[in-house]
């Protein structure tokens, strides 16, 4: 369906069509991650891409599971998901109340499952760089002060509200028109495990005690709050499923 929409998009103003299709067109640019990953300090290039306006819902993921029974929780091979996969749903093909309601973000999905979903609809997971780029562009567009951004994130880390998630896109879509990048659930990205690789002796896979300073360009709260997101993401395993981890898909422009 979305593949079709992307193809059709060529004949219409891109931004308008993307929005109707539930995606936002994000202009690329030169950009550097908000953590210090390289000694060289070269900036990276982000190409234009499209991103889902909101996170994938239980309802949408249920459609996917129905069409692809090999991703039912009772059929998905163990190599692709841990024991908690979709365990909050009342049944393998049934939604329910609260976090299992159709309009809530789907959680307890592994990286493998998230990728399979995006591939099925003609997309892919955003790269870590794309996701972080969108996050920063959104902050700029909304003129969120670093202190407010940090407070919101630290609040979410301590009290993620995982027992009672809001529906996706509860508020108005302002800024870039993207909902819930922060404050609802964290999102899978394609290369989630790639951070903190800074060489032979110092790369302990995920960083260790006291490693924070090497990766922060500034010691303010906002950079710490961002770093914790990188840190948490890189500590997941591809089979990990939790109540605070969902995803949205990205697409290449035609």
């Amino acid at each position, binding site marked *: 369906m979305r593949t079709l929409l992307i193809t059709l998009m060529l004949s219409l103003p891109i931004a308008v069509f993307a929005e109707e299709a539930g995606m936002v067109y994000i202009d690329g640019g030169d950009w550097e991650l908000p953590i210090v990953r390289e000694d060289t300090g070269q900036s990276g290039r982000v190409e234009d891409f499209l991103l889902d306006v909101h996170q994938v819902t239980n309802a949408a993921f249920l459609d996917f599971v129905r069409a692809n029974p090999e991703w039912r929780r009772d059929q998905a091979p163990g190599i692709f998901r*841990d*024991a*908690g996969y979709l365990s909050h749903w009342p049944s393998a093909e049934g939604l329910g109340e609260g976090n299992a309601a159709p309009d809530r973000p789907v959680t307890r999905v592994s990286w493998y499952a998230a990728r399979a979903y995006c591939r099925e609809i003609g997309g892919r997971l955003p790269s870590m760089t794309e996701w972080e780029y969108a996050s920063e562009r959104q902050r700029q567009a909304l003129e969120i002060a670093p202190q407010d951004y*940090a*407070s*919101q994130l*630290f*609040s*979410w*880390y*301590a*009290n*993620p*509200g*995982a*027992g009672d998630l809001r529906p996706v896109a509860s508020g108005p879509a302002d800024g870039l028109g993207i909902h819930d990048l922060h404050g609802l659930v964290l999102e899978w990205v394609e290369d989630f495990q790639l951070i903190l690789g800074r060489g032979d002796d110092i790369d*302990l*896979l*995920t*960083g*260790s*005690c*006291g*490693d*924070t300073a090497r990766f922060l360009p500034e*010691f303010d*709260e906002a950079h*710490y*709050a961002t*770093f*914790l997101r990188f*840190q*948490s993401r890189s*500590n*997941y*395993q591809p089979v*990990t*499923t*939790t*109540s*605070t*981890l969902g995803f949205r898909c990205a697409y290449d422009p035609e």
Partner: protein
Amino acid sequence: MKLFKSPTIATALAFGLISGGLSADDRLVHDGEFMVDGKIFGLPEARVYTEDYSGPPVVGDYLTAVPHLAELDYEGNRTHDVRMDVISQQIEVAPGKSYNAWTFGGSVPGPTLHVREGDRVVFTMKNRSDEPVVITEPVNGGSPFFGQVQANPIQKNQPAVSPMPHSMDFHSGTVAANDKWQTIPPGATIEFEWVANYPGVYMYHCGTPSVLMHTAQGQYGAVVVSPKEGFPTDDQVDHEYVLVQSEFYLTEDEYTEGYRYDHEAAMARDPSQVTFNGHVNALHDAPLRANAGERVRLYVLNAGPSGTSSFHVIGAIFDRVWYEGNVENEWHGMQTVLLGASNGAVMDFIVPEEGSYKLVDHEFADAERGAAGTLVAGPRKQ
């Protein structure tokens, strides 16, 4: 190769049943282990796996809630099968001030583990931060820890859900940290071994970055490794208590009711509370007890995460102090013992007379933030 060279727990457990009189070679359990100066190194690699476990989050007979310390009721050395799961828990640290803590076992500080120099610990930890775990209802099996928390639920422990990657770092273990202390995601379990090579009062904590946040959130506790031959005053000690000092950095949360970690304050070392045993009233509501003329022994750990403790008992002098809890480091007649973050000590004092004795961090800015407690002394027993 993490998966297939799993430590043979059965062997280790069987070994634990044999107590005392072991030759050096018998103490080496796994291939690759070796001894230097009677200390065991080269332990097997940690095993990370998933398990279907929803039992007690703390398992082991020698795990207690502060200020209790388990009695070592066995001779010689043994192997301890110890579990401390990571769970999120709403914790009160001062009247009306609660926050969602990240914990080992559900309290802050976590359970105190007591072992003997030379003992082996087979440690299991599941990251259950994604699961509401109740510790204030009766628990089948598990550890004495639960009964003690339930008898004095000063932190008003309530289950919470706050999924995060976590790890466990025992200062009492001598191992490769990148293996044994590795971080595991929610839902995963890690199992590793360590041998209590050196006696002491040790800290354990989560070492996952930002380590400041993880420790300030409540992930720490004490391990007491008693010396093989004991301390010289062991047979004169009437009461033993464990004290863990730590700072909290809390601010009102703008988005939810209650309090949350304040990173700016933590970086500025400006705590909102400094406590003994995790609550400003822990040692006031339930004061330590002794009688005039008795010898009281304190096992004191300063968990930090960033502050020092100048530990003092008003009206008493420490008769003996074993710094870091090592019998070789004996001091006499100490008024105050300075403990940096993660330093510990064993302190004996004689209760002078009936009355009330305040225990304080003599850095008064910390005492004013809550680092104080009381020992109530009854009359001399005849």
